[in-house]
């Protein structure tokens, strides 16, 4: 589903990704963990080219993401993204946030877009917040709307960039709950996260990144109970 080959990303002289490769299968939930500054978010943002890779190859759903001729907007329709800081559109209500992209990008008729949006609001448990503006919602509610907004494009893949890092502890659970449901439904998901509990419970595979490389990968059990690399062990000992 997602194939990454020898991905490099430099910011000036700083090489943030130093040759990253991986293969994410359909319906797989992959959690990327690692210390801050290790390149996790940059890796994720390269997948839909919010960051332009310096070199390397990315293929999502048989579409070449990297390359001059790629229509990146075409790719992004199929790749939903959820941000750490939600990035809801503050001048639009919850339901308008969700239906905007289907209307403008997919050219979905208004009635249908509205139906999709209301279904999704229901799915994330926020039917009663349909007409609320982002600043009237709590962080957890905003992030759930943001997930619904990404889902409205019916993406083939969902990317989550530390979706719970900006949330108060007591609302982290409601967002993880929505993500768990998605995973159960078979959505292909790549999640950059510090929520080890989520990675352990929901992840099919865990990738440990450090200093711009995937140092170790394996099932959650392998990584959390029986890490092989010193750096993985050192990282896990600090956070578990």
């Amino acid at each position: 589903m997602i194939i990454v080959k020898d991905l490099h990303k430099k910011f000036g002289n700083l090489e943030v990704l130093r040759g990253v490769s991986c293969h994410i299968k359909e319906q797989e939930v992959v959690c990327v963990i690692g210390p801050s500054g290790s390149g996790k978010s940059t890796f994720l943002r390269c997948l839909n080219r919010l960051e332009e890779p310096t070199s390397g190859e990315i293929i999502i759903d048989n579409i070449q993401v990297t390359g001059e001729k790629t229509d990146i907007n075409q790719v992004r329709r199929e790749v939903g993204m959820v941000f750490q800081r939600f990035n809801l559109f503050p001048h639009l209500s919850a339901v308008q946030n969700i239906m905007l992209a289907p209307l403008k990008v997919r050219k979905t008729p208004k009635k249908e877009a509205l139906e999709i949006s209301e279904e999704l609001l229901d799915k994330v448990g926020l039917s009663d917040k349909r007409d609320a503006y982002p600043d009237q919602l709590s962080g957890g509610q905003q992030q759930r709307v943001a997930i619904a907004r990404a889902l409205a494009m019916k993406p083939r893949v969902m990317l989550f960039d530390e979706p719970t890092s900006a949330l108060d502890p007591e609302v982290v659970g409601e967002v993880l709950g929505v993500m768990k449901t998605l995973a159960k439904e078979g959505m292909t998901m790549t999640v950059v996260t510090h929520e080890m509990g989520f990675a352990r419970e929901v992840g099919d595979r865990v990738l440990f990144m450090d200093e711009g490389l995937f140092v170790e990968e394996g099932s959650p059990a392998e990584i959390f109970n029986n890490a092989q690399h010193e750096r993985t062990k050192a990282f896990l000992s600090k956070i578990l």
Partner: protein
Amino acid sequence: MRWDFVLEILPKLGKASILTLELTVVGIGIGIVLGLVSSLLRISKIKPLDLIAKLYVDFFRGTPLLVQIAIIHYALPVIFGYIPVALVSGIAALGVNSGAYVSEIFRAGIQSIDRGQMEAARSLGMTWGQSMRHIILPQAVKVSIPPLGNEFIALLKDSSLVSIIAVEELMTTGRLIMGKTPRVAEIWFSVALLYLILTSTIALFVNYTERRLQTGDNR
């Protein structure tokens, strides 16, 4: 002060202030269109377009409006060989001049919007243009309203400068009356009062717009 004289000249000055207001409104209208285009060119990251817009903004902000009026009314007709019409020259000068200021107002407004907004819009598959139109500009225009209001008021006062090419707006009308009577004080205090009424009205209108836009989205 002779109040009966003030009352006598007020209708004439009042009529002239309508032309002043019209000049300013059309000028700011042109300015908003030019400013929007120019600000988008400036942030487009397409170097030649950015450069053209930057030259435009720097020229019109860096030279006196009085000189710009003279160039448009006297110099350009010589170069391009046409007969200038004072009203048209005046409006054009006010328009291109305010366009340069409005360009910077919009640019600041656009840049004040969190980068995450553009990223979120693009991540949904929207093009740069769609993201600008539906996400960035609605928010940028809102934060630009107060400085736009200031520009509107500044332009109204600056519109007095078109009197040098004899557009019969408020300032020119004051001067014409002065030529026929020795009652100088009455004339210029009346002119000042009318400008004050115009600028206060605009300030009220801007405040109202600002408050109306705030309801429903209290960021």
